[in-house]
């Protein structure tokens, strides 16, 4: 039987959001001493209070009835005062998603284990060079060859088992986070950013995940100059847009770098899943495009409008909140009759009717089960 201690779960959830007892008690509308007694188990929490606490602490109701010790423990590298509230809420969301992944493993009978390869980087090393070297090694390890990676999310999911969730955090410096509960890991990406940036953010967070597993990393633009951030930025740029792959793409498309047009930069950007600005910056960085030409191209180009005219992928295209593997595990769980329709809808963040329609669409994409005829006379 689970060891239920609702008060301690309240205390744990409050700590994850970085709230003091005074702050939470004010929001709950009780005295600070009352909340302290609730957390210590000296005062019973009513059902009404618990629903309110679940809302304030951004946790599902079941969180408070989970056995102690199951919840993921976060270790923040960034100082507490640098985390704004939306960033903390996003981290709690990531923790909730990790918890759902655990549940889905059980319901679907599928195990999610990320195959991350940890690299150790010398603290004295130049972070920019280290980032480039690790990016090269990781491209080789993932057998990416000389291909661009326009959809890093799918690539990571398929080749490393690392799932990336989208989460909307407007008006915040928060770009993404990495979470790991010891067995499974996940990334959370702020989808308020355009795709060129979400792809870059994914690569950036991936860099943190292969350097420091076991933590949740919070990237805030307030501290872009740390060695770790420079390492991750260098990794992301070299992983997504390495020199040899860019050169090959230019050669394949028969582009003359001296006369490169903004349309050609846009085409390359689309091919590499990058923004116009990031692609052009990279071309200038490698000296492929002269800085004067780059300046002119920036002046004359409206990237979003022109991308649409050219029929290139829209950099602002939606980044679905749920990774494909997660959705498939939810569908499998429903197909196995391990979860009810309403639970499927909860996992998918959909209404029941829509969840069922998606499930039906998913079953249509599945190959029919193979039937094997047992030859007569054999013992099946």
């Amino acid at each position, binding site marked *: *039987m689970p060891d239920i201690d609702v008060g301690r779960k309240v205390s744990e959830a409050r700590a994850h959001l970085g709230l003091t007892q005074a702050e939470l008690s004010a929001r709950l509308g009780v005295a600070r001493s009352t909340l302290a007694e609730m957390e210590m188990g000296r005062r019973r929490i009513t059902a*009404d209070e618990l629903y309110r606490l679940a809302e304030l602490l951004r946790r599902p109701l*079941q969180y408070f009835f989970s*056995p102690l010790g199951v919840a993921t423990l976060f270790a923040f590298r960034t100082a507490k005062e640098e985390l704004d509230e939306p960033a903390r809420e996003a981290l709690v969301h990531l923790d909730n998603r990790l918890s759902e992944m655990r549940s889905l493993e059980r319901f679907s009978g599928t195990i999610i284990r990320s195959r991350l390869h940890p690299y150790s980087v010398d603290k004295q090393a130049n972070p920019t060079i280290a980032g480039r070297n690790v990016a090269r090694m990781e491209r080789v390890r993932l057998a990416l060859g000389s291909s661009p990676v326009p959809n890093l999310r799918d690539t990571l999911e398929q080749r490393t088992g690392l799932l990336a969730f989208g989460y909307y955090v407007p008006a915040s410096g928060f770009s993404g986070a990495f979470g790991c509960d010891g067995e499974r890991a996940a990334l959370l990406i702020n989808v308020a950013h355009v795709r060129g940036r979400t792809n870059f953010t994914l690569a950036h967070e991936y860099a943190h995940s292969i350097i420091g597993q076991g933590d949740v990393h919070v990237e805030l633009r307030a501290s872009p100059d740390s060695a770790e951030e420079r390492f991750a930025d260098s990794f992301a740029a070299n992983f997504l847009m390495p020199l040899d792959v860019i050169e090959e793409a230019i050669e394949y498309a028969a582009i003359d770098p001296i006369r490169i047009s903004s349309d050609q930069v846009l085409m390359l950007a689309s091919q590499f899943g990058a923004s116009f600005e990031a692609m052009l910056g990279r071309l200038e960085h490698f000296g492929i495009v002269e800085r004067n030409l780059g300046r002119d191209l920036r002046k004359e180009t409206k990237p979003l409008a022109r991308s649409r005219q050219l029929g290139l992928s829209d950099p602002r295209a939606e980044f679905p909140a749920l990774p494909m593997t997660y959705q498939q595990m939810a569908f499998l769980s429903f197909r196995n*009759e391990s979860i009810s*329709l309403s639970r499927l809808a*909860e996992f998918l963040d959909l209404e029941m009717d829509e969840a069922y329609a998606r499930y039906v669409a998913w079953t249509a994409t599945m190959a029919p089960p193979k039937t094997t005829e047992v030859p007569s006379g054999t013992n099946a």
Partner: protein
Amino acid sequence: MVRMLDTMILRYFERAGLLDVLLGLPDLAITTSVRRELRRWDVLSARVDTAVQNQELAVYDVDPGNETEGTLYFFYRERDGFGDGEATSMAVAHNRGFGFVSHDLAAAAKIRELGVNVLDWPDLLAELRDAGGVTPSQYAEAAHRIRGMLRGR
């Protein structure tokens, strides 16, 4: 005996035009989780809120101070894979000896084998008919509409 209503039961009766009549039956209750799940339908949600205020519908929730109820709820969620509305209603019904009204066959089967009295929408519709709350033609029409909804899914 108090009957805990699952979310979709209220939705079926609303679509059949019999929600007001249903809420006239005695001893009906929901959980706050069910009430929240109903928020996706504005008109239904508003009517249920009014019913709660007028005490036509009681609200019973999993008691955080009751370890048995909390454990049952957690098991229904994490062992049996039920939604929050279902799991809270089942835990309350199971622990307090209430009835449970649901059309979810898995939920019904699970809790019936634990000795809980389980009802479905036809049982409530029949109760309304027997109590004179609906005419035989209203009964037939409502049953037809609800079956149509279920076929649509």
